[in-house]
């Protein structure tokens, strides 16, 4: 069993109690900064600040470590591949056949990896600290149709299910004599294709059953929905919006861009 990353776990802190709309605004502005910032230092600061917010906001460090674990492979691939393909700059570090490794290339890899990591953790902030119904409600209040919000909520809910599915299928293959250790990379990639097909079939079955269950409970009726738990902006939420906006503007005017 895997630790549920990328999913809400109950907690109690100012960050958990903030209105989902505030957290969504923070995530939106944070990602905008990620995309326009191009200096490595700026991206690193963004990543550190996000971690401080998560930590002070009472998100378990274990969950943050688990998220890094999931991101690690992607980040390492970026750090290795990027220098191979961006060979600009004058400081040549190594030449291997046709490939030239330059300091700028390595810096470019670092920049992209930092950008991906920052964006991931900024996007995770509302997801980790808001129950899905509240998040859906927040998206709806911003003006998204309920079905869109519900789709986002369901996608988050079943992300973990799909990961578990992959693991279970993999285990079933091993139980039938499939030894990953004794296979080469081509054989392993080949074996992954049927696994993916099995996951697609299983998730189609799941979504079928979900669609039936939702329709049976009156989903898609034209009458207006009610909400058991309302969300409302409190003084703390307005203050948070102020802080987030000021920080964003300040970041824009500081030397984010070279």
């Amino acid at each position: 069993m895997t630790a549920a990353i990328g999913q809400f776990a109950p907690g109690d802190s100012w960050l958990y109690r903030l209105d989902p709309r505030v957290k969504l605004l923070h995530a939106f502005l944070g990602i905008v900064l990620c995309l326009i910032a191009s200096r490595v230092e700026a991206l690193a600061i963004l990543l550190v600040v996000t971690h401080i917010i998560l930590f002070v906001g009472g998100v378990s460090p274990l969950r943050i470590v688990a998220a890094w674990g999931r991101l690690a492979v992607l980040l390492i691939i970026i750090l290795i591949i990027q220098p191979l393909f961006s060979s600009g700059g004058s400081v040549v570090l190594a030449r291997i056949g046709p490939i030239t490794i330059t300091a700028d290339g390595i810096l470019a890899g670092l920049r992209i990896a930092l950008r991906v990591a920052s964006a991931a953790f900024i996007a995770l902030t509302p997801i980790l600290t808001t129950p899905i119904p509240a998040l859906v409600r927040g998206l709806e209040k911003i003006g998204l149709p309920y079905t869109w919000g519900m789709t986002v909520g369901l996608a988050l809910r079943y992300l973990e299910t799909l990961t578990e599915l992959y693991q279970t299928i993999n285990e079933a293959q091993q139980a039938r004599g499939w030894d990953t250790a004794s296979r080469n990379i081509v054989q392993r990639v080949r074996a992954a294709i049927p696994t993916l097909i099995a996951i697609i079939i299983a998730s189609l079955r799941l979504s079928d059953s979900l669609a039936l269950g939702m329709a049976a409970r009156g989903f898609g009726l034209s009458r207006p929905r009610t909400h058991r738990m309302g969300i409302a902006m409190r003084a703390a939420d307005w203050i948070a919006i102020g802080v987030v906006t000021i920080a964003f503007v300040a970041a824009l005017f500081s030397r984010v861009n070279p």
Partner: protein
Amino acid sequence: MSAPPSVHVAGLTFTFPAWAAHQPPRLVLRDVSFDVLAGGCLAVTGAAGSGKSTLCMAVAGLAPRLTGGYLAGTIVVAGRDVQVEPPGALAGTLGVALADPAGQLFNPTVADEIAWGLENLGVPPARMDDRIRGALAMVGLDQIAWDQPPQTLSGGQQKRLALAVALALEPSVLILDQPSGGLSPLGRAELIAVLRQLRQQRKLTLLMAESDPEFISRLADQIIVIHDGHIACQGTPAEVYLEAAIHPEYGIALPPAFAFSQILRQRDPAFSLALTVDAIDRPASKRQRKPLEVASLVADIARPAAIQLDDVSIRYKTGPEALRRLSLAIPSGQFVALAGENGSGKTTLARCLIGLIKPTAGRVLLDGADIAGQSVGALARLIGVAFQNPETQIFNPTVIEEVTFGPRNLGQSDDSLAASVNESLTSFGLEAWRDVPPAILSLSARRMVALAGIAAMRTPIIVLDEPTVGLDDNDLRRLMAWLVDRHRAGATVLLITHDMELAAHLAERIVILKRGQIVADGSPQQVFNQNALLQEAGLEAPFAIQLAQRFNWPALSADLTPFGAARVWMGTSS
């Protein structure tokens, strides 16, 4: 004078499109007509793939709208034409609980789950908590924490929550697809009690697709059997099971009490037909009983242990210990049934035997050798493990490739490969489906594919985790025949099951787990006679033992099937 039926179906015909261009479309139901009176309970039964679930989904107004296919005929529920009403419009009239509760419980907490439907119907927020409380009380979940995530509930609790979700919308008709599937005997008994109470108190009309004869005979007042797309027979449970007994092609399992009373009726026509153990009458003449032997488990010390666990503890990252200092030795060639409530550690045990999960303490030996350090793939030579869910064990494009996957990995030569694959396909009744994608088969047939994939590996140790859930009677017989065969050939079998009739029929030894520990271990007679212990472990004795206890038989023969019970009965009363 008589009130109109709650459910009226006339001339229903249902067709699914072909799965491939050169195939004809599949006619699932033809000209099906029936009524369910208000407050009645109709069970739709039939072999796997007979279309009983499709029928229920059509009555619920969900098929073909969400499933695809073509429908002709009339379906009226509580006076409303389900094909005309927009989707969702029947939600307050007609409740549905689907076969797989996990797929329809998608909210983060129990309260959110029930509230979600109420929100769709526009129920004022102030009234929601009362409705949630009421619905949970109706299904006996009033003690549950409202903020508990539904995925953390046991299988039985999830089924009841799915029912509460439907009941909160205050329907007058409830449609249930495979309500008993995957439940432990305790979970099943609780669900039966809840549904009976709802019928009495709320005059709820029930329509269910179900195959468990115990479940049907304790609840339904009418049964229809779908065979070959149409209604093959229809009537009260007693009438239908009489008919089904002479039509094995229907693929319907008989209630054990019914099978028992039928055998006795062949000798004494005055013996009354019974559907449950409580309905069996005391024999008219009570003669002196012959003393009978109790077969006790003969510990076979001479044989080496095929499976041995020494003080094994397993703890998952989250949650309590799944296995606690568990020791178990299974001699080579023994047939053991492992039972226990959902979450008692049965599946963890199966996973640790093949090295998919490492013990936090203790050691596991197969054929006398410690498995630590051996890869799962290498252990597969020795031990074939079939897991619960067939969906996650099927990943090849055709049935034959699926069955070939295991033995080919084990390096079987081409000749023996073809032989074991063919033998396996025959044992599990899959010859006709060799080149078909497994995904289009019924659940029962998909499970047979997964089992055939393990069978073809011809391992000396076989571990099956809940292999009978969703199997129809014909497939169940195939599985039983294969198990008996392999056991005779000397294989060691560990069968994890909730089905006590099956365990009593096949196993020499019963082991019961509770919270990761063995609470009972012995011959079926020894274990099944400990009522208090069974109840604590969420289990129920098989029919033969229940009957023996009801009539204070001193003992039973080693045959714990209804047939064995009938022989004892004839011995004691003649």
